[in-house]
């Protein structure tokens, strides 16, 4: 039985025990039908031209983990940003771990989707927001919607800001030979609210993991949302991350994606600007080796006038790794005075590495400033020579320059401890000794 059949036939079993009168039941039923019709995307589809999910579909993934696993904090501490105090929503093999988590209902709600689905006090928020930004057509998103049950639920009311940043951590223990996870996150920042979120997926063994995640983010008027995705997983972990962001007037949403590990990563990052004077920022650093594959698919839809978007993706690709960047900017007819900027710079380190870049502009308004730039190249030989002439050996000089190349994306990270953590990972990957601060 292939994965699609397995998923479709498991749907009834999945809903067994869930409240079938809940409005979400209907969403799920519609979604599974859509997935059943469309199936997994193939390379024949333009959006999946450079990324194949074929080999993943051959693996016999467990869809429901059989047993709950307990983990000691000390064993997984290093996967947390433990240097600072944070709220934590932790899942082990897709199941919420209250032992490792720290949630709150103190003025803001930082808790679980399963609670939000079942408790009446959250019902209104679920009705207004759940599945309102996520695509009802895209097959993997609807697959997730069909199986949506657990994940992080974060609700920040008007004018509020949680006391500390929030970490969402998904751990896979390897108790199953191969595990498929489908977390579903909902993040709502009402008018003038502010929140910082760090999300990470981590497999603890060499067993196969396939995560198909959907996150919906709603930013109200003047709200500020900072979302950091740390993707530094084990070489047997694959991730399809679908993030949908809906913004209202004058809101600011920044998403940083650090793709530094894992087997196959596909990021579908979609911004919908449903108001004026909105600012959207999309930044990414990708550093790959081995046979890793990362595909960044971004969409910024400018639907209203006077908005801005800034995209900056940097990639360094070694060994037999493959990078894909597909950035699309759409400017609607009425979205005059749009300022959309997109930049994608890549460095190939080996003869076997590949980069495919497809920056796209679709523009229907005439009074706009839109530009995109894409480069593929090597390190600047002159700068390299300059460093070497100052006594820095070639290998270190190269690493230093790559570090500097990737590093400027980090400038806009607003949690200093996270910034230095990412810095450290990048430095390690490039074989640069710390001891300097760029």
């Amino acid at each position: 039985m292939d994965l699609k059949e397995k998923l479709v036939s498991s749907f009834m079993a999945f809903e067994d025990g869930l409240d079938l009168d809940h409005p979400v039941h209907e969403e799920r039923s519609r979604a599974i039908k859509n997935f059943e019709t469309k199936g997994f995307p193939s390379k024949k589809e333009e959006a999946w031209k450079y990324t194949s999910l074929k080999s993943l579909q051959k693996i016999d993934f467990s869809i429901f983990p059989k047993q709950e696993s307990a983990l000691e904090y000390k064993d997984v501490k290093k996967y947390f940003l433990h240097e600072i105090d944070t709220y934590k929503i932790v899942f082990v093999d897709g199941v919420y771990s209250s032992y490792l988590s720290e949630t709150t209902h103190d003025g803001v709600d930082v808790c679980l989707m399963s609670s939000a689905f079942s408790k009446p006090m959250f019902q209104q928020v679920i009705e207004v927001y759940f599945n309102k930004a996520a695509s009802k057509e895209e097959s993997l998103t609807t697959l997730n919607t069909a199986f949506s049950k657990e994940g992080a639920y974060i609700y920040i009311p008007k004018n509020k800001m949680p006391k500390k940043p929030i970490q969402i951590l998904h751990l896979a223990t390897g108790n199953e030979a191969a595990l498929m996870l489908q977390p579903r996150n909902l993040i709502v920042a009402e008018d003038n609210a502010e929140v910082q979120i760090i999300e990470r997926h981590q497999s603890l063994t060499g067993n196969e993991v396939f995560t198909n995640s959907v996150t919906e983010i709603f930013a109200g008027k003047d709200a500020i949302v900072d979302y950091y995705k740390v993707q530094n997983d084990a070489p047997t972990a694959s991730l399809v991350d679908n993030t949908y962001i809906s913004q209202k007037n004058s809101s600011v949403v920044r998403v940083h994606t650090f793709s530094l590990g894992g087997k196959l990563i596909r990021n579908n990052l979609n911004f919908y600007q449903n108001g004026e004077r909105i600012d959207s920022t999309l930044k990414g650093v990708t550093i790959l080796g081995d046979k890793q594959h990362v595909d960044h698919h971004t969409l910024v839809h400018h639907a209203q006038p006077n908005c801005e978007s800034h995209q900056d993706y940097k990639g360094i690709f070694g060994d037999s790794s493959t990078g894909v960047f597909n950035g699309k900017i759409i400017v609607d007819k009425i979205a005059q005075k749009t300022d959309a900027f997109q930049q994608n710079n890549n460095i190939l380190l080996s003869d076997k590495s590949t980069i495919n870049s497809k920056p796209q502009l679709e523009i229907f308004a005439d009074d706009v400033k839109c530009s995109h730039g894409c480069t593929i190249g090597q390190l600047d030989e002159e700068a390299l020579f300059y460093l070497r002439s100052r006594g820095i050996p070639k290998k270190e000089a190269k690493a230093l320059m790559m570090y500097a190349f990737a590093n400027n994306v980090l400038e806009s990270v607003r949690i200093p401890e996270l910034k230095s953590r990412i810095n450290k990972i990048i430095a390690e990957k490039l074989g640069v000794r710390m001891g300097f601060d760029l």
Partner: protein
Amino acid sequence: MAYTEEELKKELETKEYEYGFYTDIESDTLPKGLNEEIVIAISKKKEEPEWMTEWRLEAFRAWKEMEEPEWANVTYKKPDFQDISYYSAPNKKPKYNSLDEVDPELLDTFKKLGISVDEQKKLAGVAVDIVMDSVSVATTFKKTLAEKGIIFCSISEAIQEHPELVKKYLGTVVPQKDNFYAALNSAVFSDGSFCYIPKGVRCPMELSTYFRINQAGTGQFERTLVIADEGSYVSYLEGCTAPMRDENQLHAAVVELIALDDAEIKYSTVQNWYPGNDEGKGGVFNFVTKRGLCEKNAKISWTQVETGSAVTWKYPSCILKGDHSIGEFYSIAVTNNFQQADTGTKMIHLGKNTKSTIISKGISAGQSQNSYRGLVQVNSRAENARNFSQCDSLLMGNRCGAHTFPYIEAKNKTAQIEHEATTSKIGEDQIFYCNQRGIDTEKAIALIVNGFSKEVLNKLPMEFAVEAQKLLEISLEGSVG
């Protein structure tokens, strides 16, 4: 009161097609429809050798199995391939020795088009091959060229006179089965131009072909084959017009260029097929496959000014096979009213130290859609490949669209690829500045559009550049004057 941009836009939309007239020449037209008999009939009418008939049939059989492609940004009513006549030749099949023998009405048509097949052009040093409704009716200056060993004739003639060259190169760059329209063209092409420049020869004049669709309900399927032998050089001009017609006319040409070691081919196109009226009715569907192959140190340069056609779909491409070979693509695409253009290029880097440059300027007005779609591919053995691409769009008004879809694929670490794209509009302040210097708004827009397109216009041979500028004005400005 002064002329507002709004008023100008209106005028643009009501602008009549300047070349919209119809020449009344008796035509010898095959019945509509397409099957093996028709393919054989075309081949027979052209008195082709058997290998050619076989080649066509092979293509036809492949075409039957193929599906018509769907494109993301182009919408149109698909042509009914059984409702097209695949052959239409002017009746008095001519073999002229001098221009005096040419049907005066035909000559008159050329005059209206501004194509002088006469002495003036001769002085300008241009040899012209005219394909009107598919058959090559006049090729001049053959003698001058023959002295240098240059062959410049219709492809039908080449099939008769130089079968060894045609056999060797036809379909080598664009195979019969390459795509739906290339297969169709291979099966039914009626005529086109053939050009061979021998080793080390620099062609002393610009070679030029004019294509024109005249007969109602016909499709034009010309086939162009240009071979530049080692160390040779040729500059080739191609112009296209079609009279006004209500029904959509189909144009599916194939152009193959072969630049052998150290050779250079410059291929310039000014395309002004009938774009349809201001309601989007009629116009030419222009589905063209153009591709060039560069051997060692060779260079192919495509320059195009696309102002016509209801739907344009073309991607002149370069296969940079030889080490140190160079590919260039310079394009201006203007769309107005309901026109749709989806054009760009493919640069396939296979050899070492290969270089490519892409400069694309898109200008959209009315309710038109203008897309750049391009591919830069660096294969794993293409050490030190370089590419620079720049795609700029200019939007006029708020009902049109400009789109950029570059595909960049690099498999070699020594590749250096740069791509830039911008979108802008004509500023009110620029218009006022020109107005203040006594230049009216219409002229100001022409001036600014010309400036915007400069880098590409500069690549055209002199006399073509003048014509291209005029075309830009016509397509965007309405009746100047």
